[in-house]
């Protein structure tokens, strides 16, 4: 009776101890040196693995920073906060990292941009762009099927009425959407600048008017009114030089077609929808 209980108990204790000893020895024998700095740095990074820094993920960037291959402010998502923490670990001064955010340089939605055909294919901008450059007549317009939104690691992009919109509160400026947009209408702008041009079309004004109500007609009113000389009209579309922009918002007010967007106007739109 006692033997029936004791034998299995002893055998299992023996088996357990044996396995435990084996694993204990294995941890010593198979010990792998880890870069402690890399682990500390990885803890400071956001951990979204967005790939905005050019490395495969946060762990890869942490290793690169620890080995001195990447700068401490390489993570645009973590911004200055992460850069400072990492700089403290690495024992160097952090250069100021400019926080960026993505903006869609197109405002032609279902109602104000004309389409050349009805797209019924795979729900993906890249697929649609292969079919004659997308369904919009405008060769540079947002296709609006949300490939950017699908790839955004922070859920900051929404499709409203056939056009991608960036929620500037959620956007961390990783730039993943920029790489996925087949029409290159998403650009990174400095986070603290309010204005951006909501058009990318390089067609002439007359032609743009025929297919889009919100296309830049290159009237140069913004260029003339900008007190800082930050806006230039090249290739029939206005472009803002953010190093000169003083954030006055005059261009958005003066634009006759209201295509220079501001963060304030976007927020108003969003609130009206609610």
């Amino acid at each position: 009776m006692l033997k029936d209980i004791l034998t299995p108990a002893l055998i299992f204790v023996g088996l357990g101890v044996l396995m435990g000893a084996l694993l204990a020895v294995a941890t010593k024998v198979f010990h792998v040196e880890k870069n402690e700095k890399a682990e500390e740095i990885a803890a400071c990074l956001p951990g979204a693995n967005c790939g905005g820094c050019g490395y495969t993920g946060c762990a890869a960037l942490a290793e690169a920073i620890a080995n001195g291959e990447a700068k401490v402010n390489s993570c645009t998502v973590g911004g200055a906060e992460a850069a400072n923490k990492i700089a403290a670990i690495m024992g160097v001064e952090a250069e100021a990292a400019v926080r960026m955010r993505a903006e869609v340089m197109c405002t032609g939605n279902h109602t104000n941009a004309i389409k050349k055909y009805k797209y019924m294919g795979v729900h993906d901008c890249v697929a649609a762009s292969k079919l004659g450059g997308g369904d919009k007549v405008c060769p540079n317009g947002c296709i609006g099927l949300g490939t950017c939104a699908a790839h955004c690691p922070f859920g900051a992009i929404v499709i409203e009425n056939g056009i991608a919109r960036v929620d500037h509160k959620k956007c961390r400026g990783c730039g993943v959407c920029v790489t996925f947009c087949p029409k290159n209408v998403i650009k990174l702008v400095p986070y603290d600048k309010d204005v951006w041009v909501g058009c990318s079309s390089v067609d002439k004004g007359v032609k743009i008017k025929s297919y889009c109500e919100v296309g830049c007609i290159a009237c140069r009113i913004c260029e003339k009114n900008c007190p800082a000389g930050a806006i230039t009209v090249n290739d029939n579309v206005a472009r803002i030089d953010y190093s000169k922009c003083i954030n006055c918002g005059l261009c958005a007010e003066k634009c006759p077609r209201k295509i220079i967007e501001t963060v304030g106007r976007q927020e108003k739109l969003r609130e009206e929808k609610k």
Partner: protein
Amino acid sequence: MSNIFLIMFGAILTENFIFSRFYGCCPFLGVSDKPSTALGMGMAVTFVMTLSSAATYAVYYLLLEPFGLEYLKTIAFILVIASLVQFIEMFLKKYIPSLYSALGIYLPLITTNCAVLGAALVNIQDQNSFVESVVFGFSAALGFTMAITVFAGVRAKMQLSDPPKSFRGFPILLIAASLAAMAFSGFSGMKF
């Protein structure tokens, strides 16, 4: 020799672990969303199942049977397989880092996956010899890999389809899995 082939054929097709025995349904539904992850999971399962078949054979016939402890085989196998996976993980990390990063998270995930434990128990039930056990473990895992990879392909197709709202997500997944299992039941007529 023909016995070995029979075991392989049976484990891969007629008695497929997922579609016929319904072992390992959790990873089958959990990590089959992309063919690449499904293949990674399948590779890890193949690796562990082959080795654990050998290890549990030794434990059963060298330790449990002589002492008449056959009734404790389940718990003994769990103990042995779990330690074995931990050991393999450390070994790979040190000597084959490329394989370690390829198997990655899947290795600890399947520590005591029911398919791995199931293979060990079926081996005892069928009274397989050592070679037969290892072959059975390997080919059952191959069957698992095939099933999960095929199903990942089905899921990729499903993402492009437009099922009724009440079927979206998990329900349609289970329906697709049941259809695949039904298709595999066609092999069960091929008993030798």
